[in-house]
């Protein structure tokens, strides 16, 4: 097969870290080549070298048989390499045309942009590659999936032959992901090559022609997507066998711990303006018993975030009753609810879960710093905080040089372990975990899943809110599906199938059980 691109013996050192260790990597013409690895395996560093962001310490980039040297991304772009970053680089108030022209403007006069010529070329490109988008739309008005098309068009406007897609599906709905995959297939049929970076194993197996796995800066090996299984890939990534489906025994539910009756929560003022819908959570009933995991599934934005925030005191409850262990928490403060035995793994760990500038030790006592042994009167007891941190770092396998390392310097997986360690180190009766494994690598996901099940088995009631259907299916004992602020149905795990949950998530009803759905 003709090679589009070859990386030979790429080595990149950062002080104390060998980020890339003699990496050899080849991409064939018209191929989708997946680059797979955990966070910190060196994928991003390798792609940044290919894109001209840093020079390699050793090794070379070979394009079309010729070694090339990139001093900046513009060199790489000239050589036909395009990159779509995970976080888009678009100017929201500009139109699609203006965004695509930016940095490569066609001029009608010395001070005049030739928007018409650019728009014409964009229309041609979008027809050629199936990237349909209106060149006159403002980017701010486009959905995330269409914005991504603009990014891809931007690369082809600059005549890219090799396209790097960095975690392109992380921000997409399942439908948008499917559309992206068909666009990717169309591109390769026209001879373009794609480097696809991901840690979602299912997708990698579904779309790729070849897979290269990185671990700790080295190539561990290649895998054939036609014969490899998810377990094989996970084992290569992590370096030991990983259990994707965590084993658990049947739940032994005890008394009801969380009891929600007709709870109503208003939307944010800003969000309600214009949308007309005032209620984020609309008169829901829900019970979670000791020793069981109730999963809340649903497409994001159907009230799950507001549900979790209301139950933890971060957002006012506007109607109905909520009791935890028999005590009403309506109108109570987050402090009251925490002290009452509720652990909360928040959806946005960097905004709510951690103070990134604080040492790990302080983050581990964020909600208990005022209690003995961490405080004596008003004086902080440094030794107790350190001992607590040392113990939890060990118990929860938090990889850090020191308990005084700022949380900012940890990887996402280790940051989440800090949050989980803190929340589960208290004496809890209820755990509310929102998107507990979002953005984490396989090894950390496995660890967090085990921890949640261990909490359940110790008699804690668990409310698990997740947008990942796989996560809900592998952990939950009962599954509540939220749709437009209501609970569309509560299904026991044994009766839940992907199809059934998918229908409930998309429309709030399944024909067979439509009669039981309260919504008219």
């Amino acid at each position, binding site marked *: 097969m003709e090679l589009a691109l070859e990386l030979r013996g790429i080595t990149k050192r*950062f*002080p*104390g*870290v060998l980020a890339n260790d003699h990496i050899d990597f080849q991409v064939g013409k018209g191929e989708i080549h997946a680059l797979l690895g955990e*966070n*910190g395996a*060196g994928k*991003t*560093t390798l*792609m*940044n070298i290919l894109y001209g*962001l*840093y020079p390699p310490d050793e090794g070379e980039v070979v394009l079309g048989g010729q070694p090339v040297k990139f001093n*900046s*991304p513009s060199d790489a772009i000239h050589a036909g390499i395009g990159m779509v*970053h*995970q976080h888009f*680089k678009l100017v929201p108030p500009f139109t699609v045309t203006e965004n695509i022209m930016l940095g490569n403007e066609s001029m009608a006069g010395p001070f005049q942009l030739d928007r018409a010529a650019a728009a014409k070329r964009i229309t041609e490109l979008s027809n050629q590659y199936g990237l349909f988008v209106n060149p006159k739309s403002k980017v701010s008005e486009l959905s995330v999936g269409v914005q991504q098309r603009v990014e891809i068009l931007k690369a082809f406007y600059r005549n890219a032959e090799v396209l790097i897609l*960095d975690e392109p599906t992380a921000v997409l709905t399942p439908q948008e992901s499917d559309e992206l995959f068909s666009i990717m297939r169309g591109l390769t049929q026209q001879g373009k090559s794609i480097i696809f970076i991901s840690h979602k194993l299912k997708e990698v197996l579904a779309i790729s022609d070849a897979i290269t796995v990185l671990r*700790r*800066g080295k190539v561990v090996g290649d895998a054939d997507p036609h014969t490899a299984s998810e377990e094989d890939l996970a084992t290569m990534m992590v370096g030991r066998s990983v259990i994707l489906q965590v084993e658990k025994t049947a739940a032994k539910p005890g008394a009801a711990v969380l009891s929600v009756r007709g709870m109503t929560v208003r939307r944010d003022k800003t969000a309600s303006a214009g949308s007309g819908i005032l209620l984020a959570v609309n008169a829901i009933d829900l019970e979670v018993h000791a020793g069981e995991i109730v999963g809340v599934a649903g497409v994001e934005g159907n009230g799950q975030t507001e549900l979790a925030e209301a139950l*933890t005191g*971060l957002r006012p409850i506007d109607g109905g009753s909520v009791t935890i262990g028999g005590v009403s928490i309506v109108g109570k*403060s*987050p*402090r009251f609810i*925490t*002290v009452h035995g509720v652990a*909360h793994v*928040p959806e946005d760990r960097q*905004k*709510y*879960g*951690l*103070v*990134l*500038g*604080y*040492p790990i030790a302080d983050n581990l006592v*964020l909600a208990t*710093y*005022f209690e003995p042994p961490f405080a004596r009167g*008003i*004086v*902080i007891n*440094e030794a107790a905080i*350190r001992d607590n941190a040392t113990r939890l770092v060990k118990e929860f396998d938090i*990889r*850090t*040089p*020191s308990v*005084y*390392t*700022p949380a*900012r*310097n*940890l*990887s*996402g*997986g280790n940051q989440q372990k800090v949050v989980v360690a803190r929340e589960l180190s208290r004496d809890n009766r209820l755990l509310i975990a929102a998107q507990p494994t979002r953005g984490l690598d396989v090894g950390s996901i496995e660890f967090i899943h085990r921890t949640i099940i261990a909490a359940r088995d110790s008699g804690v009631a668990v409310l698990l809110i997740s947008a990942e259907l796989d996560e809900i299916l592998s952990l939950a004992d009962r599954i509540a599906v939220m749709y437009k602020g209501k609970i569309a149905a509560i299904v026991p795990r044994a009766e839940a199938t992907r199809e059934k949950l998918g229908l409930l998530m998309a429309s709030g009803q399944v024909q067979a059980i439509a009669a039981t759905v309260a919504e008219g």
Partner: protein
Amino acid sequence: MEDQSISQSAPAAEEADTSQSRGLSAGVDDQLAPSTGGGKPRPSRSQAIFSALHSLLVPFLAVVTALLIGGVVIFISNVISPPVSTSPLYGNSPFNLTLRAYQGLWVGAFGSFDNISATIVTATPYIFGGLAVALGFRAGLFNIGVEGQIALGSLAAAAVGFNPAFAGLSPWLLVPMCLLAGCLAGAIWGGIPGLLKAQTGAHEVITTIMLNYIAIQIVSVVVNAVKPGNGQVRTPDISLNAHLPVLIATSTGLKQIHLGPIIAILAAIAVYWLLWRTTSGFELRTVGTNPSAARYAGISVKRNIMLAMALSGLLGGLAGAVEVTGVNFYHSQGFSAGYGFDSITVALLGKSNPFGVVIAALLFGALKSSAPSMQFYAGTPQDVVSIIQALILLFVAADEIVRYIYRVKSRGEEKVVLTRGWGG
């Protein structure tokens, strides 16, 4: 260890792809940040605090740069308009006069015991003011109202001090009463914007600026009502029993070291203790660093905003009270002009670290008290000191310039949030 360094590198590596806009060199610096910290585990917090001294490197270089550029300014001013009074010792070429100006600055600040005493006494209000601003910064608040808090603290202390009803009290009673009155006035004046922010979201930058004007008018009304008959617009002198004791006398009897500098050092220690050793300080700093996480952790953001503003105002009020009882012995309209604003520079220069603030305040004290000596030595206008102060503020605020000139890498140190947007 290898595990650790790999997992360490992760956030930087993942982040790097989004850092294009900051330019390549900034991106690489950030890459280095976690691993330099990761190479040597920091075993104890006292070492962590020690390493905070490293963060004073950039302010130090900012001062050096400001002094160098200040030299250029003096040189140019010497060329354009040669100074009138010159010393025959060095000749009076513009270059020699520039050196003379700095010699004058040094001698004026540290050249004799009396001069050192003057430096320390001049630095004292900057220590209190800098601590006031720094405490606000740590809690995520920008207290621009220190100016008004100093004025009202000074007025309140003077009012207690000159009140004939108290004149006969023992100094052991009257001095603390004056200081407490100053603290109380400052705390109320700082507490008002705190209350407004907590209850209505009114931004403290706006409200404290407005309250400065109100404070100035209050001072004007009160001073005009009580002014002695000799035509001066000021309060009567305070009772001798309200004077802070002089600890070390000077030959001139001016700018003698009184108890104030000791109180200032104790205040710095107290602010440090409060912020880093108590549960209240933990709450203040958490609210200042990440208010969302503070709320999540059950910390009352509103209560801490009010507390921080009141404490900040209290330190400002104490600055005024100490000036009245230690140096001025009366309150005159406009005595404090500029202390409150220079305190912002002092807090920034000291990186909002209480001990850094003490060092920065001493520098400002030295510059302020030695300006006349500079004029005496080389005929350089005293205003050059203001230029140097402004340059220091410029280089501290825009520290990327200093990092670029001296190639100082950012170490991803704890950043202090200076202020946030509306209702934040």
